[in-house]
């Protein structure tokens, strides 16, 4: 039930017809998504998104315990929003590439910490052999079979296919056989070609990104989807981005979660021209996504990017997932993220509870591992 206060606020904001469609569980059009973006009536928008969020997930707020593995930051692409990539391995450029042993040990050394997932994302390295990309998950999987491996973005998959002359399907099948279970959602940025040409014109196109996920879904892999907002895109282009994801999801049902990512302006090529999007922009983006993406089960606020305070607030604006107690995040921290490198499970619980939600630990596939209904002793 939407409260009278919310009903009236939505009427006043001219969102009454959209509200009625949402309450009748009808799909919103692209125009309607745009109207929600432009409404600038944050409390009303939030109330509607929160209504949908609570219909789906009640008070549960999901998180997982994961470790990030970024085994190289050397990258042949030149995305203008990126602070992580380096042109080569030379110390002067702060480039690095872990050896196979280092990469595997980076993950295996985290045993005993209750971690259930490793998240592997890297630069597009010009020289690493295909076997390396297979051997990393293979060895991790052999040594730690319970750990679920979420590995390589669609942009990396596309890069592998071109570089090693394989089809997407071949690449994905070999990775699956090596223990990779799901794909992260990175590299989607904004699908619109106008934007892509300007900010990342030398990596996988929108069509290629979507095709990788389509193939992965067909092979039974679950995947995630992101959207980088706050660079040069227009609101219409955000809606277009979500529209393409919604269409593919209708076809495959393979996406687990949608993850909007705010552009971080420090140490990259376009930071001077574009300030970091404000928190308001983040909150309305979550809310619109929750209302528009009716076939996505989960909506994630990545706290590393957003900061703990906004991430907590986002739990009232449609978000049901806060990512995890991330160990050793590099990509956003190199772009100036001021958040801690990791939140303890207790800190995450406190943050979730203070927002009136119930913490639920999930695994890579969004299976609930445990619901922490009562406070645990710190």
């Amino acid at each position, binding site marked *: 039930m939407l409260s009278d206060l919310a009903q009236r606020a939505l009427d006043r904001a001219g969102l009454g017809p959209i509200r009625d469609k949402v309450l009748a569980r009808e799909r919103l059009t692209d125009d309607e998504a745009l109207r929600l973006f432009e409404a600038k009536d*944050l409390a009303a928008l939030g109330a509607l998104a929160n209504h949908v969020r609570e219909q789906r997930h009640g008070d549960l707020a999901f998180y997982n315990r994961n470790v990030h593995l970024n085994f190289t930051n050397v990258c042949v692409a030149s995305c203008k929003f990126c602070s992580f990539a380096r042109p080569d391995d030379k110390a002067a450029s702060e480039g690095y590439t872990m050896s196979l042993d280092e990469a595997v040990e980076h993950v295996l050394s985290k045993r005993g910490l209750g971690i259930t997932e490793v998240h592997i994302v890297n630069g597009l390295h010009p020289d690493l052999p295909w076997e390396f990309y297979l051997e990393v998950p293979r060895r991790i999987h052999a040594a730690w079979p319970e750990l679920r491996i979420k590995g390589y973005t669609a942009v990396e998959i596309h890069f592998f296919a071109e570089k090693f002359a394989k089809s997407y399907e071949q690449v994905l099948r070999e990775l699956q056989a090596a223990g990779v279970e799901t794909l992260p959602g990175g590299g989607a940025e904004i699908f619109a070609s106008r934007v892509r040409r300007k900010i990342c014109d030398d990596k996988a196109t929108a069509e290629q990104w979507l095709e990788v996920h389509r193939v992965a879904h067909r092979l039974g892999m679950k995947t995630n989807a992101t959207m980088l907002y706050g660079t040069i895109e227009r609101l219409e282009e955000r809606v277009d981005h979500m529209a393409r994801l919604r269409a593919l999801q209708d076809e495959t049902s393979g996406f687990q979660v949608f993850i909007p990512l705010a552009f971080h302006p420090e140490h990259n090529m376009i930071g001077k021209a574009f*300030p970091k999007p404000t928190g*308001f922009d983040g909150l309305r983006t979550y809310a619109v996504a929750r209302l528009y993406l009716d076939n996505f089960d989960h909506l994630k606020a990545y706290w590393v990017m957003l900061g703990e305070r906004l991430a907590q607030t986002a739990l009232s604006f449609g978000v049901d997932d806060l990512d995890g107690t991330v160990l050793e995040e590099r990509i956003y921290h190199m772009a100036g993220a001021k958040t801690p490198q990791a939140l303890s499970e207790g800190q995450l619980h406190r943050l979730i509870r203070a927002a009136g939600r119930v913490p639920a630990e999930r695994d890579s596939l969004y299976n609930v591992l445990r619901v922490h209904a009562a406070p645990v002793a710190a």
Partner: protein
Amino acid sequence: MPKLRAAAVSFLNARPLTAGLEGSDRVELVLAEPSRCAAMLEAGEVEVALLPVGGLVGKEYEIVPGIAIGSDGPVTTVLLAGEQSPVVWDEVFLDTASRTSQLLSKVVLAERGVHPRFTPLPALDGLARAKGTKGALVIGDRGFDVHANHVLDLGREWTQLTGVPMVYALWAAKPGVLAPEDVAELARAAHAGLGMRTELAQAFAKERGGDPERYRRYLTQRIRYGLGPYELQGLEAFVERVAKHGFAPPTTLRFADDHVRTRRVRRQVSLDTALQKGADGERLDADEAELLDEKAPLLELGLAADARRRALHTDGVVTYIVSRNVNYTNVCTTACHFCAFYRPRGHQEAYVLSREVLAKKIEETLALGGIELLLQGGLHPDLGVEWYEDLFRWVKSTYPTINLHALSPEEIWHIARTSQIGLDEAIDRLVAAGLDSIPGGGAEILDDEVRRRIAPLKCSSDEWLTVMRAAHRKGLRSTGTMMFGVGEDAGHRTRHLLRLRELQDETAGFTAFICWTFQPEHTRLAPGDNSAHAYLRENAIARLVLDNVPNLQASWVTMGGGVAQAALHMGCNDFGQVMIEENVVSAAGTTFNMDAEEVERHIRGAGFVPARRNMRYDRLGPVKAA
């Protein structure tokens, strides 16, 4: 009426708490050894005792809130001494005078893995026999004279072990014995006594010899007299560890004012009704306000507050001010537990700003388009009203256009007291010298139950409101503030808002309300819920309850721009202050412009039109459309 009998030790460290009781018409002081104080309380020979915490364990006494004798690090007067290192001790002679120190010795040694035999023995005998593998406990003023090869300061050991202070003694009574007036009298005496520490040190030196300066430092720097959340952590840790090692049974801590809280019977009210009333601008009563605080979901509060904000501020403008915060001194006598800023007089980091420095700051402010000087400082014991008059006259004659927004109620109260003039006279003189308006800081939570715990030496809620009332009546305008997330409950927060509302009905002197959460980073005081979610809820509640306060500021300084933007959609209509900071100004003038730009970008980004304002919320210049 018979006087309340209060037992206390004659140790130097107790004197600041007891000296103020001399001549009390409510309390009669009985001096005794620590263990004897406990016995007299148990036997009913006295109603209240300065009880060593060892006397508290396993008992059901009520603690007088806010006051204690403790240390956060070395204490000097609770020592283990011996010829050889404690690790080789096989026997320790325990001074029979204090059970607390005995327990503390046992806990500290046990946690270091030392398990000697403990033998009770009077202190002087023990010290004489502390040779070879024997050690001895020495407590009280004898500690000043101990010279041994190996000395363990148990205050230091405890704090190193636990990271929290040690509490040695506190006022305690049997349940239900103390009236609120008794508690107030003990607090008054403590306040008075703490102001006489220099004199008490001198008297003590005359009495038993020794260096008065050393005693003064002991009273002002070694011993902590507050019992705030930080000290409470220490107290709880002590009770827990004593029980963990099996030295005494577990104990639940009770406070003399606990029962007061449960007395009020609440009326049944409906959440929806309360929200709707608030949204419509109808006055909420205490039960409704408290219910909103306890139960209402964030977005429902936000929607109601947003409706209210739209009714009060119809044109979609969000204001901000360009002003400069200057703290003229960091010397302060109140030692609040949440404060990381203050320094005692004579500390190497203590300062009082010179005119030259101040002139430079004001000129920079004016050059950057600032219109206001927000001047606040600690409660400096040496600065009388004349000092402020001179300062204000100089500021206003040199820089006639600047708004002098200065002195929180606490400071005005302090100036009146220090100069021994009435409050009215103090305000009149400050206004005549150039004071334009006053900031609303230092309100914290206007509920003495909370204040006594977090800021026992600060002015009371009544005093704070009295100064505000007097200032408003003389035509001064002020803001009203609240700092929460210090472990208070919904009832405390509600009472705070209602007291502000009540005064506002009377004076209409508050231009705005500002709340922020306690920032624990530099203080080690454990926070309550100080999350962004709590912050947004409290702002919305304030918008609904404070129906007579026109403006609400969003605090981007503490919460960040994004949460502050959300607050603009949940009751706030002002984005606070573009602050000109020391380092920012010296770096380059452009940084400040960026900051004003950034404030405007956030206001626009949230869907509002930015406008600069002055302290009275008059808009300055034409409003630029988005």
